[in-house]
């Protein structure tokens, strides 16, 4: 198959082909019931061609479509002439195998199910846990990439994780707290996490007794998980250059050197950190992923690129062109995006807040570029510099530019999250990660009751 693809590469303009073989194992529990086990295999390819104008691409899974895949892509790009160019990229020939000392693939499904069931039963054995949702997911990708410049890459990626949601209920109040394990290629990273689970069980038990957050504007402290979602939604997406490559006005807004936040703020995107969801070697156009500083001492110093956007903005390639699988063209996306640890302790952050909120447990967010929003499920009031009663259902929203300026303190406790995932451009990609320390922001809009 790969040979057929490679042979069909021609010398007209730019042409590339990805061929992917993906095996996904999922096990789902809902409450005490096993909801499903599925083992899915997808094989298919994606051909791209560029003859100066717009991209012509063709996704396919049927074998008979393979030989004419590039022809289809070429026919499409011919219809949309123009002057698009790609930034030059080194020609690479490389083979990357999964590195793991605890490979989940040879372990049989029965044992994986037993592990998930163990955690699930542990949660359900607490009488206050109303129900659960528990998901084991193992994604193994074999990806071939070649282009007509001579690059040929074979790359494997493996990600194994357990995600749990613990639900408690008091009358009509139903609350949920999440737990993520793994996020690496090692099965061993899923083992021995009972203490963490017990901690989460206690949180959700308390949460149904908590009052909802009152809407208003507060000084808030976000825990590392919330800060991670914040940096992903509020800043990360805007650093993806496909938003601004064709947009002179936004380019002015996003000028390098512009001050985005206080001098203690440093934001980095780094796919080279191993054993976290956002780790990989080469992106889906054969460019090596690199550590990129996005904000240094409060100033915008970099952004994420594909070869196309790097050429349009006259900047260096970064290796961020990524697709969920062969059914999609690659788009510019984050890898592991995080705020670097700062100088402040949690106690220093609490001090001086007369009335504020400490928010934990992010539950998803979204951005429109300029505005972002995300929900938290659990938090605490801060009263006169001390943590007060627990609160629930606070959601944050704001304008990216003003919110980054409102950052007051950055914690010294950076952690990279075990869970990842992002649904940009309708492409749900699990291998997008995030991290951060605690963060203190003033004048944050909180929606609640």
């Amino acid at each position, binding site marked *: 198959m790969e040979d057929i693809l490679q042979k069909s590469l021609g010398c007209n303009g730019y042409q590339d082909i990805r061929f992917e073989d993906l095996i996904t194992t999922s096990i789902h529990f809902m409450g005490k019931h096993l909801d499903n086990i*599925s083992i899915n295999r997808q094989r298919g390819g994606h051909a791209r061609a560029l003859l100066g*104008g717009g991209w*012509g691409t063709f996704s*396919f899974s049927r074998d008979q479509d393979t030989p004419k895949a590039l022809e289809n892509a070429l026919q499409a790009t011919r219809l949309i002439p123009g002057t698009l160019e790609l930034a030059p990229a080194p020609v690479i020939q490389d083979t990357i195998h999964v590195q793991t000392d605890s490979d989940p693939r040879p372990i049989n499904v029965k044992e994986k199910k037993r592990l998930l069931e163990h955690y699930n039963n542990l949660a359900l054995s607490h009488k206050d846990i109303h129900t659960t949702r528990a998901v084991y997911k193992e994604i193994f990708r074999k990806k071939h990439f070649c282009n007509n410049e001579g690059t040929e890459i074979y790359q494997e990626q493996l990600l194994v994780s357990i995600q749990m949601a613990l639900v408690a209920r008091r009358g009509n109040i139903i609350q949920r707290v999440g737990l993520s394990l793994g996020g690496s290629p090692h099965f061993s990273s899923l083992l021995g996490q009972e203490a963490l689970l017990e901690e989460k069980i206690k949180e959700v038990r308390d949460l149904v007794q908590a009052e909802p957050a009152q809407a208003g504007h507060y000084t808030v402290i976000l825990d590392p998980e919330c800060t991670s979602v914040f940096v992903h939604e509020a800043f990360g997406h805007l650093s993806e250059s496909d938003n601004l490559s*064709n947009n002179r006005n*936004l380019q002015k807004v996003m000028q390098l050197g512009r001050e985005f936040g206080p001098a203690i703020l440093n934001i980095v995107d780094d796919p080279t950190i191993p054993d976290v969801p956002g780790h990989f070697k080469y992106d889906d156009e054969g460019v090596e992923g690199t550590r990129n500083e996005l904000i240094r001492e409060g100033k915008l110093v970099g952004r994420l690129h594909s070869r196309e956007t790097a050429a349009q903005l006259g900047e260096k390639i970064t290796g961020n062109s990524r697709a969920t699988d062969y059914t999609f063209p690659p788009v510019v996306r984050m890898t592991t995006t995080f705020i670097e640890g700062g100088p402040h302790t949690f106690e220093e952050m609490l001090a001086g807040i007369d009335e504020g909120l400490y928010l934990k447990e992010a539950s998803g*967010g979204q951005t429109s570029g300029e505005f972002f929003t995300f929900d938290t499920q659990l938090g605490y009031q801060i009263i006169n510099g001390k943590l007060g009663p627990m609160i629930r259902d606070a959601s944050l929203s704001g304008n990216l530019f003003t919110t980054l300026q409102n950052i007051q303190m950055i914690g010294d406790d950076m952690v990279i999250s075990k869970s990842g995932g992002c649904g940009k451009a309708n492409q749900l990609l699990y291998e997008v990660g995030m991290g951060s320390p605690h963060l203190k922001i003033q004048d944050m809009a909180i929606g609640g009751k």
Partner: protein
Amino acid sequence: MKNLLDRGKKLADQAEIHVVDCKEIPVTYDQNTFKSINKKNTRDISLRLIKDSCLGFASTTHLNDTEVVDRALEQAPFGEDVAFDFPAEHPAEDTVIFDQRLSRITEEDLIEHIYDTIDAVAAYDASIPLRIQFISREITVQIANTNGLHQEYKKTALSASIYTLSPQGFIESICYYAAGRLFRIPDGAIKNLIQRHQQAQTRLPVPTKKMPVIFTPRAFGALIYRLLEAIKGTNLNTGVSPLEDQLGETIFDTNLNLKEEPHKPYGLFSCPVDDEGIPTQGKEIITAGILKSFLYDLKTGTEAGKESTGNGFKRSLIGEGFREPPTPHATNLFIPPGTRSLNQLINQMEEGLLVDTVMGAHTGNIFAGEFSLNVGCGYYIKNGNIQGKAVDTMVSGNIYEVLQEIPDYSSELGLLFMFEPMGYGPDVLVSSVSVTGKMNE
């Protein structure tokens, strides 16, 4: 297909195979240039087996990948216990969802459609930067099982999204059109897009208080989504739905009606059978505020001691759901329109908000009906007129509280949305919603 079914029958008690072929042509235009044509021609195959009352599931992309049967079989012994059989064939209602002309559409035609759209906008204002995407899609679905069922249908769809961009380059106003057949975007829709774009050039903070809110169908889908999650068998059977004992009870304003119309000609989610081969059924979900139906597939229906309601679909919120077993989902939803136009509703409002797009629809305590939505495209209304775009604004509440008072609906129908379209409805006026803004009063 037969080879997989035969192999499944030989190795297990029952087998079911579901094949979806998808042909798609998206053409994307972004501010003076065509960005891309991303053609797609893919196949997805999923297989379910029942052996000794245990269910196995696996999927593949190739009919000659007979190992898919072994993968499903491998997990069946410790798979879930099921009490249902794959269904025998029942006659399904003829559903008109295939448009010959649309099935022949080419990328050249779609490029023409985009040029026409650019001209239509330019007739009002040629200076507004635009992003436009047209997508044509043709899907062939086949479902067969070892109990004699074989269902097959083809459907077509066309969608058009037009975005105007703000001076800063962010999305300012949106026009989205989609149907199961070829269409021309009506001039009224373009006119409306331009009007909203112009209104958005004035940006206003709004006060923090409870006020009446008009949700366009695009935004109202986020509220309906919370109801749909609560009436799905999956969530009823696990006790996370607050509606488990509310069937036949009045849960909303008596002015609220919501139906499911799976046989509407060329409806986006119209189909004769669900993904388990069971005929779809038109049904009332909310009638005069009373909860009338729950949504079940084979599995959750059987668990609840009921029949499947023909709502077993492989669908997920983001992306495609082919690779997981079916769960209950609604087909075409329909909320009947009112008699007055959206403009009349606006004109009669002393102070309020028109909300057209929201962010964060998938987050928060969905089951409990809570919503806390950041307003993307929203407009502040004072003394019967739109004053400008509402910035830094959130709307929040609980659907079981705020939907107790719905004084009116507009006469215009649009698409209900939850990331993807989910059906049809009018603009909905809700009496009192908690709005958080940044205006100092």
